[in-house]
Structure formats: structure tokens, C-alpha cells
């Protein structure tokens, strides 16, 4: 039995930070707010590291009971925490990357009037995310799941005076509700059939069940419903539409929530539920197909975007697709591996993009950047590292994890592998396109006007800009650390060490070595070639022959327009789902039911009462003699009645 690790401290510390900053931050100085935010998130990270180090020799999951919450008959769900090798990875990524992004935000948000509010929300997000990954039952996980959704909503709409930001926050929240609906039904099915939502009892009951190869059954249903939830949170087809809009939030938020941590919650949840998925091949196929399609689909949109953050958003969706592809082919450890490396390089890319936006005074359109490498060398360097990492150039982090996924996918079906490879090519292309458009060539930004201000200054820091300038050290520090992690983070996967690390959780692995080592090396070489090809193509199109992209775009005509407009998915959703809902609500529910039935019932009842009252109130004139008259009349009626009764008898 392990000594108690006091895991509860890990989520509670950021919650305390959120509470202190939220309640007292308005009157406190910025320094005080900074100290509270950093101390609480930092100590959470330190405590996580300490706990993990004390836990790690163990192979068994560690459970910690904090307080009891729901007890209803034989069903119970407690505030209890669960640590195994999977949550170890998640906790370290969340607290580590989260802490770095907190530091970065100190510089990025330095001039925002709602500084304390930002850090309060950010800490609150950390609390819910850690609850999500440390929960020992699905219900507590669901609390974290909804909580990160709330924090995401608050942070996307952080600049709520901007209509587009408020609308984006709402969109994210509403689209996530659809996914949560599926998740909840999955949980209800679990309660119905297993009588519990705690991981250990549920999985103990699932393990003896037979694999549902012949036909879809209970486990398939649960798996697909859980996947619906994961689609919402992790922005997969068909529920991915909220993530690109979520870029309205401050850039550190995009880095933390919409790249490194929250959006990977779906991958974590699916991996956590692996005993269910492993016994439901159809559900796994659904996961794999959704992931593969999303990876390709989002990557193609990424090619045409000109907003630097939108490119990264579609890239995130695409990379999440890779993770689901990995889960779908049963390679959960590869998915988690990619989750981790993705947190490093995508967090870095977003923070770098934030540094770029900071440098050019709030501009996000890459067509107005260019040539920034001489102005912001450190950002350029770190962004370059991240681009190499995501493109899959060895030996950077992304290469190891992406190659692992492609290798596992190949073992299941070459179709997944092929689409994954094409996606890798596109990924490399659009990332180098971003890099070249931003940093290479000549600066195309807005010129300084008479007052020494750039025109496009509605971004996070609207202060006066001269030339693009490098970010302060407090922002560059996290960039450096993440760049180091992106450089070397992949080596934990060298020689399948990462898979062995997660083996106590996923306990698979033996079937993995079916194909020969030669094939693996061949595929590895192919994916490297493809990545280089994408980079070279981007170089040709955006550096050496910059007139070509327009020609190609013109040549493709309508298809290009479709991709540029994100395949009109938003418009289709608006026409198919939103408009009928709005029309139905307006015509039937509002003007029909609400006005005709409910309002009219109430109004007519009120009118009737008023008419009767108008008549009856004549009695209450305030004139004493008329009251006496009524009394006399009443007495006369009573007497008449009694006489009538007497006669009748």
C-alpha cells in the first residue's frame, strides 16, 4: 500500500489561486496578482512532480479518497482521485505546460485592463482540467469536463465587448453541449448496466465480456456515445466548428486550452475507456475513421487560411485527428505520446504566434507580416523548431510520435496509413507556408502613421508600436523551454520506451511486432521524405516563386473557393440545423405556443378576473351606509331562506 500522496492538493492549489485572484484581484496590484497566479500554478506543478516521483515505482493504480459525494443505494460516486501511468503523463503535461503558459501570459497580458480576471480564469481552468485527469470516476471526470468547457467559454469570450468573441464563446459552449449529450447518455448506459461509474468496478466488469465482433452491442453503444462526447471536446468531425472560432480568445488561452490541454481531453477520455473500446471493434472503427477524416479535412483547410491563429487552429484539429486515428487502431499509447509532444510543439507554436502578434501590434493576417526574422530572431528560432517538430522532421518530437501513429495505423489498414501520410505532407506544407509567410521575405505590415501607431491595434495590446519588436524575456523564457521540449521530448519514445511506460495501463503490445523492422524503417523514411517534400513545396511557392500560389488558386477555381471558405461547413450547418431551429422556435414555439397558448391563457384569465372585479368592486365603495344596506339585504336573504326551509319542512 502506498503512503498517501495528497493528490487533492494538485487541483486545489489552482482553485485557491483562482478564488484569491477572482475575489480580491480587482483591488490588488498587478504584481500581487502575478505572484498569486504563478505561485499557485507553480506549486501545483511542483506537487504534481513530487507525487509522480513518489508514485512511479509502482505499477498499480493509486487511488485516493477525499470525501464522499453521492451515495444512492448501491450506486456511489466520491470525490476521489486516481493516478496511474496515463494520468501521470496528463498531469505533468497539464501542470507543466500550464505553468509555462501562465508565465508567458504575464508578459502577453501585461497591459490588459482585466489582468486579474484573466489569471483567475486561467487558474480555474487548471483546477477543472486537473480534476478531469485525476478523477477516479466518470462523474467527477464529467465535472472537470464541464468545468473546462466553462473556463474555455469564459476565456474565449474574455474580450466580451467584441461581438465576435462573445459569439465564439457561445458557439464553443453550445457545440460542446451536443457532445456532452452523447457523453452523458454513455454514462447513463454504464450506470444502467454496470451500476457504477468508478473506473475500477466498471472496467472489472467489462474485462470478462466478450469482444463484440459479430454484432454491435452494449459496449459498442457506450463507446460510440463516449466518442460523440470526445468529438465535441476535441473538435472532431462533425463538431469541430467551434475550435477555429475559439481563436477569438487571447493567444495564451489558445495555446493552453485550445491546443495543449483541454482539446486533448477527448483523447484522454477515450484512452481511459480503452477496456470498453478494445471490446467494441465497430466503435474503434468509428473512432479511427473520424480521426483520419478529420486529420485530412482540417489539414486541407489549413492550407488556405491567412490568419496565423486560424492556421494553427486547423492544424490542431488535424493533429487531434491523428490522436484519434491512433486510438482507433488500438494504439492508445501512441495517441497519448502524440498528445504529449503535440502539447509541446503546438503550445510553442501558439505562444510563438502570440509573440508575433505582439510584435506587430495585434495584426493576425499573415499577408501583412513577412520578413520578421530580422526583427524577432528568438521568436523566429523557436517557431522554426516547432515547425520542424510538427512537420515530423527527425529527430524532433513530432517525428517520433507521428511516425509511431502511422506505423500502428499501417498495421491495421494501409488506408489509414496513406491518408495519414498525405496529411503529414499537407501539415508540413502549411506549417512551412506559415513560417515563410511570417518570417521570410519583406515586411508587408502596416506602416507607422503620423502618431506613431499602427492601424490594426485592436488586438491584445493596443499600445503604440513602431517597428516590430521582440517580446520581453518573460515571454521568451517559456518559448525556449517549450522549444527544448519540442527538440528532445520525442526521445522518450525512442525504442518504444513510452509504450513500455504506459504498458501497465494499456497492457497490449505483443501484437505490435508483427510486421518486419524493415517495413517500419521504410515507412519512416517515406514519412520523412513526405515532410521534406511539403517543406520544399512551401519554399518554392512562398519564397522563390511567390507569384505561383495565386495562379494555382485561380487554376483550381471553385474548389479553391470551397476550401478557402472551409468547405462552407458553417454555412451548411446554419442552413441545415440552425435555421430550421430558429425558424421553428420563432414560428411554432414563440409565436404559436408561447404567444397563442401560454400568453393568451394567462391574459384571458387575467382579463376575466378584472371584468368580474370591476363589477364586484362596486360593493366596496367605502360608503358605510351602502355596507349596511348589503348587510340588511344579506340578512333578508338568510331570513327568506330559513322561512323557506321552515315551510318546506
Amino acid at each position: 500500500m502506498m503512503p498517501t500522496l495528497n493528490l487533492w492538493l494538485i487541483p486545489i492549489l489552482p482553485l485557491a489561486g483562482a478564488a484569491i485572484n477572482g475575489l480580491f484581484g480587482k483591488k490588488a496590484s498587478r504584481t500581487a496578482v502575478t505572484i498569486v497566479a504563478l505561485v499557485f500554478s507553480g506549486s501545483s506543478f511542483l506537487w504534481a512532480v513530487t507525487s509522480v516521483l513518489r508514485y512511479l515505482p509502482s505499477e498499480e493504480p493509486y487511488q485516493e479518497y477525499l470525501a464522499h459525494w453521492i451515495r444512492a443505494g448501491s450506486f456511489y460516486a466520491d470525490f476521489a482521485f486516481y493516478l496511474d501511468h496515463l494520468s501521470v503523463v496528463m498531469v505533468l503535461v497539464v501542470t507543466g505546460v500550464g505553468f509555462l503558459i501562465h508565465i508567458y501570459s504575464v508578459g502577453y497580458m501585461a497591459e490588459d485592463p482585466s489582468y486579474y480576471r484573466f489569471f483567475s480564469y486561467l487558474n480555474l481552468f487548471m483546477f477543472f482540467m486537473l480534476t478531469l485527469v485525476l478523477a477516479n470516476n466518470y462523474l467527477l471526470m464529467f465535472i472537470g469536463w464541464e468545468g473546462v468547457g466553462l473556463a474555455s467559454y469564459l476565456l474565449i469570450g474574455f474580450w466580451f465587448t467584441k461581438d465576435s468573441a462573445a459569439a465564439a464563446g457561445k458557439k464553443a459552449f453550445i457545440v460542446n453541449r451536443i457532445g456532452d449529450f452523447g457523453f452523458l447518455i454513455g454514462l447513463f448506459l454504464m450506470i444502467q448496466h454496470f451500476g457504477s461509474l468508478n473506473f475500477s468496478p466498471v472496467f472489472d466488469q467489462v474485462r470478462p465480456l466478450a469482444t463484440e465482433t459479430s454484432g454491435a452491442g452494449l459496449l459498442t453503444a457506450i463507446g460510440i456515445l463516449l466518442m460523440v462526447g470526445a468529438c465535441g471536446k476535441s473538435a472532431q468531425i462533425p463538431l469541430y466548428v467551434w475550435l477555429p472560432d475559439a481563436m477569438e480568445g487571447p493567444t495564451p488561452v489558445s495555446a493552453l486550452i485550445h491546443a495543449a490541454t483541454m482539446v486533448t481531453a477527448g483523447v484522454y477520455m477515450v484512452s481511459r475507456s480503452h477496456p470498453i473500446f478494445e471490446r467494441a471493434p465497430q466503435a474503434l472503427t468509428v473512432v479511427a475513421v473520424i480521426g483520419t477524416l478529420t486529420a485530412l479535412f482540417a489539414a486541407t483547410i489549413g492550407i488556405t487560411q491567412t490568419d496565423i491563429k486560424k492556421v494553427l487552429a486547423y492544424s490542431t484539429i488535424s493533429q487531434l485527428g491523428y490522436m484519434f486515428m491512433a486510438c482507433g487502431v488500438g494504439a492508445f499509447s501512441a495517441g497519448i505520446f502524440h498528445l504529449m509532444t503535440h502539447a509541446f510543439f503546438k503550445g510553442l507554436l501558439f505562444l510563438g504566434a502570440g509573440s508575433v502578434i505582439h510584435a506587430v501590434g495585434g495584426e493576425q493576417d499573415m499577408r501583412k507580416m513577412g520578413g520578421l526574422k530580422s526583427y524577432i530572431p528568438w521568436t523566429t528560432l523557436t517557431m522554426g523548431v516547432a515547425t520542424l517538430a510538427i512537420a515530423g522532421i527527425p529527430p524532433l518530437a513530432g517525428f517520433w510520435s507521428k511516425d509511431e501513429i502511422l506505423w500502428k495505423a499501417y498495421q491495421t489498414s494501409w488506408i489509414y496509413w496513406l491518408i495519414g501520410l498525405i496529411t503529414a505532407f499537407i501539415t508540413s506544407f502549411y506549417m512551412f507556408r506559415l513560417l515563410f509567410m511570417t518570417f521570410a521575405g519583406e515586411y508587408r505590415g502596416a506602416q507607422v502613421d503620423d502618431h506613431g501607431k499602427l492601424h490594426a491595434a485592436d488586438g491584445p495590446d493596443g499600445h503604440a508600436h513602431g517597428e516590430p519588436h521582440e517580446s520581453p524575456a518573460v515571454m521568451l523564457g517559456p518559448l525556449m523551454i517549450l522549444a527544448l521540449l519540442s527538440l528532445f521530448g520525442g526521445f522518450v519514445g525512442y525504442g518504444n520506451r513510452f509504450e513500455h511506460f504506459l504498458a501497465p495501463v494499456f497492457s497490449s503490445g505483443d501484437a505490435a511486432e508483427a510486421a518486419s523492422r524493415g517495413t517500419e524503417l521504410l515507412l519512416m523514411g517515406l514519412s520523412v521524405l513526405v515532410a521534406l517534400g511539403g517543406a520544399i513545396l512551401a519554399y518554392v511557392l512562398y519564397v522563390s516563386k511567390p507569384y505561383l500560389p495565386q495562379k494555382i488558386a485561380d487554376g483550381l477555381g471553385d474548389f479553391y473557393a470551397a476550401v478557402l471558405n472551409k468547405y462552407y461547413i458553417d454555412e451548411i450547418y446554419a442552413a441545415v440545423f440552425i435555421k430550421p431551429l430558429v425558424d421553428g422556435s420563432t414560428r411554432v414555439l414563440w409565436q404559436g405556443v408561447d404567444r397563442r397558448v401560454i400568453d393568451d391563457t394567462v391574459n384571458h384569465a387575467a382579463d376575466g378576473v378584472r371584468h368580474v372585479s370591476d363589477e364586484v368592486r362596486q360593493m366596496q365603495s367605502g360608503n358605510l351606509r351602502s355596507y349596511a344596506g348589503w348587510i340588511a339585504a344579506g340578512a333578508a336573504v338568510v331570513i327568506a331562506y330559513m322561512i323557506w326551509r321552515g315551510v318546506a319542512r
Partner: protein
Amino acid sequence: MVPLSYYLVLSGILFACGVTGFLIKRNIITIFMSIELMLNGVNLSFVAFAAHWHILAGQVFVFFVMVVAAAEAAVGLAIIIAVYRSRETLNVDQVNLLKL
């Protein structure tokens, strides 16, 4: 001997006169007199029954009623005088405010 019903009819007529006067008259003193008329209509029925059934309780009741009526008259007339002094009218329709 006069039958009981005669007394009762007279009693009812007196009472009805009292009620009618109470309802239609505006002068406070007239209203006051109407109340006395109603009381005496009732008194008449009490004594008529007492005589008819040979039960003294009815006559005792009448004494009580007369005592109360006398007390009421003393208090009521005092109030009427006070009202007249403050408002210089005895028309009840103009005395509809408790406070000036």
C-alpha cells in the same frame, strides 16, 4: 287578548322602519334615532314572547337592552356633538374622513 302575531308584525314593521331610516337618512341624529327604533322593535318582540310563554328571561333581556341603549345614547350624542363642533355639519356623507 291580542294575539302574539300582532305584536310580532308590529315589531317587524318597527324594525324595518329603523333599517330603512338607517339606510336612507343622512342626518346623524336621525340615523341614531333609527337605531333606537330597531332596538325597540326587538324589545317589543322580546316582551311579547315573554308574555306569551310566561318566561321572565325575555323581560330581563329587555332591561339589559335598554341599559345598553341608554349608555349608547349618552356616548353617541357626545360624539355627535363633538362631530358637529369640529365639522359644523351632521350630514354623514360629508363626514367620511376619520381624520381632518
